[in-house]
């Protein structure tokens, strides 16, 4: 059963809600849908899941881009309603006939909607009946039990087995229960013996009817040929697998030794080859760098070339070269004609080639393939059905929409003013803790020093914490930076627990009144389970104010994997209810890529966190902010 169906304009005014279904929605699913999905350029996705205390909804939507309307259907996640897509498109069609920009209330639409809903439900029922009768009825009740468990609630199954019990006059429900009876008559099993009945995920027992069950699950199970008690066996096998994995885990943990890279005998000596000089080092070799290196590029205005933003129409469609010349001429003429009259409604087929070309172009700029695909789907969803304005070609409309979408994604969702946050922490008399995480070799330590330099220039007192206790030379590296910048460093040497080192560093900072603590961690691959666990422990124990993911701009498709796995591990292995995820991105080695700036886009899209700094060189001043407009221009050039 649908929880709610809303029609609203893109400007935000609700035009119509279904008054029959009087349930008030728990939480604010619509607002969350708009904020985290539609405005994040994920409108190409199929559905959106929303969890609120006391409810779990799935939302599906469709757009009418010409009139600027959005149609959203909300239903409980445990139901797998198949008729929703159908219903949404029918509602879209009939509402667009009734729609008038001057009218704000559409009460007469209630009747139309009721009819449409009946039709859609009936159609879905028909479909289900046909499919069920078409396939030979094999397998067992257990299999069915599993399917029904996925689709229905417990109460309805009991209805089915009870036989003739019919609930409140809903004809559809009656039909379904009859059908399940029809199935049972072959086997004679009662669903009552189903051992899995107990652990059903029943939300509500009583009133909601059951409608079209997810047929795909039924077919999949049938094809696997599970028979008799097979359902139980299947469940058991799953249980065994998980217990096996759990058994493997502690065994693995017990035998974990220090990592040895070569096959040579592991050296047990300390990896510390520095001169024995104490930290407040009066070491003459190291020069002190005061503010002599000049202003950090963070504080400078971005000077970007003002070359013509106009005609790139010539290299617009590289894909069109493949088309035969004749078709090309005809296509050109009709597109010119259409562009002058401007009456055409954009269809998927029209948008196809333009979007494909755009996707290719994005991929040549080093955007991850998956991200480019999702973006194109989202742009397609927002343009389909729109009327072309006169004197514009399809390609330029698509380009404008894509540019809009890119600016929207790259614009930070929240303020990235770190200095403000630092001041806020200063007032509360606690240090602002920043943790730098990332895979191996992306430039964490180098950029940490750059950030420290920049903060120093803004009269903030910084302290470094050397929590990379694995890589030889890491502590020395930071020590050198600290000496040059004249800032204190907290270190405990190698082979120590980074989480504990960080904790002590923060305590030290509170004691000596530093404003910011920059924590350097060891590089780790996103698939490495024990290392990710250690990182998660560090973050959970110390609760930093900012978790900065350091990623290099040279990365290609792996950016998506890195970020999503980092976020996933941080959220899975977190002990508290509110897991700390990645808050910001530091993009490094930006000077090495000329115009292949796509990594910025991939990272921002997949994680949703903004790019806070961009590292563009190897000296202290080479740190700047992301210039959104320049990046978008470069991506679409």
């Amino acid at each position, binding site marked *: 059963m649908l929880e709610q169906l809303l029609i609203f304009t893109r*400007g935000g*005014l*609700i035009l119509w*809600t279904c008054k029959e279904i009087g349930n008030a929605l728990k939480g604010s699913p619509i607002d969350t849908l708009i904020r985290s999905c539609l405005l994040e350029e994920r409108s190409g996705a199929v559905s959106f899941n929303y969890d609120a205390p006391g409810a779990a909804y799935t939302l599906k939507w469709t757009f009418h881009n010409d009139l600027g309307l959005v149609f959203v259907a909300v239903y409980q996640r445990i139901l797998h309603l198949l008729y929703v897509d159908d219903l949404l498109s029918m509602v879209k069609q009939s509402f667009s006939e009734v729609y008038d920009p001057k009218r704000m*209330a559409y009460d007469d639409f209630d009747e139309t909607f009721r009819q449409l809903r009946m039709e859609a439900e009936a159609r879905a029922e028909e479909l289900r009946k046909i499919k069920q009768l078409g396939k030979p009825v094999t397998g067992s009740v257990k299999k069915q039990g599993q399917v029904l468990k996925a689709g229905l609630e417990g109460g309805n199954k009991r209805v089915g087995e009870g036989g003739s019990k019919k609930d409140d006059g809903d004809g559809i429900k009656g039909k379904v229960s009859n059908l399940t009876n029809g199935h049972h008559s072959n086997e004679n099993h009662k669903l009552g013996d189903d051992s899995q009945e107990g652990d059903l995920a029943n939300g509500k027992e009583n009133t909601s009817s059951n409608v079209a069950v997810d047929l795909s699950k039924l077919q999949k199970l049938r094809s696997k040929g599970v028979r008799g008690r097979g359902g139980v066996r299947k469940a058991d096998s799953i249980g065994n697998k998980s217990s096996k994995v759990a058994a493997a885990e502690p065994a693995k943990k017990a035998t974990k030794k220090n990592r040895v890279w070569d096959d040579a005998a592991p050296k047990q000596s300390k990896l510390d080859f520095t001169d024995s000089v104490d930290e407040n080092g009066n070491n003459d070799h190291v020069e002190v760098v005061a503010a002599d290196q000049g202003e950090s590029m963070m504080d400078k*205005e*971005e000077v970007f070339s003002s070359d013509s933003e106009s005609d790139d129409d010539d290299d617009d469609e590289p894909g069109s070269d493949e088309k035969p010349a004749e078709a090309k001429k005809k296509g050109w003429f009709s597109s010119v004609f259409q562009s002058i009259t401007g009456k055409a409604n954009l269809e998927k087929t029209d948008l196809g080639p333009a979007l494909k070309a755009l996707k290719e172009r994005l991929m040549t700029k080093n955007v991850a393939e998956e991200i480019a695909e999702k973006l194109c789907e989202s742009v397609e969803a927002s343009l389909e059905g729109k009327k072309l304005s006169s004197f514009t070609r399809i390609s330029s409309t698509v380009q404008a929409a894509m540019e809009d979408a890119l600016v*929207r994604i790259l*614009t930070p969702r929240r303020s990235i003013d770190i200095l*403000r946050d630092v001041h806020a922490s200063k007032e509360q008399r606690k240090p602002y803790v920043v943790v730098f995480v990332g895979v191996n070799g992306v430039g964490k330590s180098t950029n940490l020093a750059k950030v420290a330099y920049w903060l120093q220039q803004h009269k903030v007192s910084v302290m470094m914490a050397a929590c990379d206790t694995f890589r030889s030379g890491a502590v020395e590296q930071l020590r050198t930076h600290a000496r040059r910048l004249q800032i204190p460093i907290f270190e405990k040497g190698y082979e120590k627990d980074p989480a504990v080192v960080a904790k002590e560093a923060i305590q030290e900072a509170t004691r000596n009144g530093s404003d910011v603590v920059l924590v350097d961690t060891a590089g780790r691959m996103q698939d490495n389970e024990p290392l990710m666990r250690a990182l998660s422990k560090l973050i959970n124990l110390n609760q930093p104010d900012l978790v900065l993911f350091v990623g290099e701009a040279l990365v290609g498709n792996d950016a998506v994997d890195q970020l999503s796995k980092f976020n996933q591990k941080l959220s899975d292995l977190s002990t508290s209810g509110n897991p700390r995820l990645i808050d910001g991105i530091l993009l490094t080695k930006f000077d090495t890529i000329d115009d292949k700036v796509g990594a910025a886009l991939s990272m921002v899209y997949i994680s949703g966190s903004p790019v806070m700094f961009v590292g563009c060189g190897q000296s202290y001043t080479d740190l700047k902010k992301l210039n959104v407009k320049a990046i978008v221009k470069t991506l679409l050039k």
Partner: protein
Amino acid sequence: MDNWEDMKIVAEQWSKQGIEFVQQIPPPQLYAAIAVLLLATIWLFSVRLFRRTKSNTVLLSGLSGSGKTMLFYQLRDGSSHQGAVTSMEPNEGTFVLHYENIKKGKVRPVHLVDVPGHSRLRSKLEEYLPRAAAIVFVVDALEFLPNIRAVSEYLYDILTNASVVKNKVPVLLCCNKTDKITAHTKEFIRKQMEKEIEKLRGSRSAVSTADITNDFTLGIEGEVFSFSHCHNKVTVAEASGLTGEIDQVQAFIREHVKP
């Protein structure tokens, strides 16, 4: 191709005929005609240039969820219909405010723009600011303290925007949702905003913060910030979009969009 050449020949003939005709007119008439044309063109241009009528655009801005769309529809239709969700696009309209429909006489229509408050759509505000005659900055008086930083940053960005400072655009700080009992008073909100902006003044450098460049700084050096220091007028008012108590907002709009 033959058609094309034929057309070219015909066009040439016509142009020849036209030139002959012009040459046949006696000179004084010709000069008089040209003079009239020139005068007309000059007059049109000068009227365009010197007709500096004040714009009638009023912007409704504020954080997402503060109630701008509801206010927009209240001002326009006198009722907020069935509610609103997060806007994805601006709501624009040029109309006479609803309460003035009853009045007789010529009332100038107001071009009201409701700009979405979501941070991803912040760039839309930049498009409308140069043409604004007045800005209504809507603040959620219920959920004020949790969002105070974001609210003050947004207001700071508006107040330091180049067009706003140059044109001395008046700003109304509208505290919305005052029909609820736990809503804060406008005095409280004003004081808190002044304090927050004071902090922002300290932490924001004058050049490039994030991607938004704050072109100007606010207030007077050395003194605690207060809204009276702004060159443009900043006033505070209370309103409730849900129940329709929007008199102060209407008065403000009417004051700054003169008929």
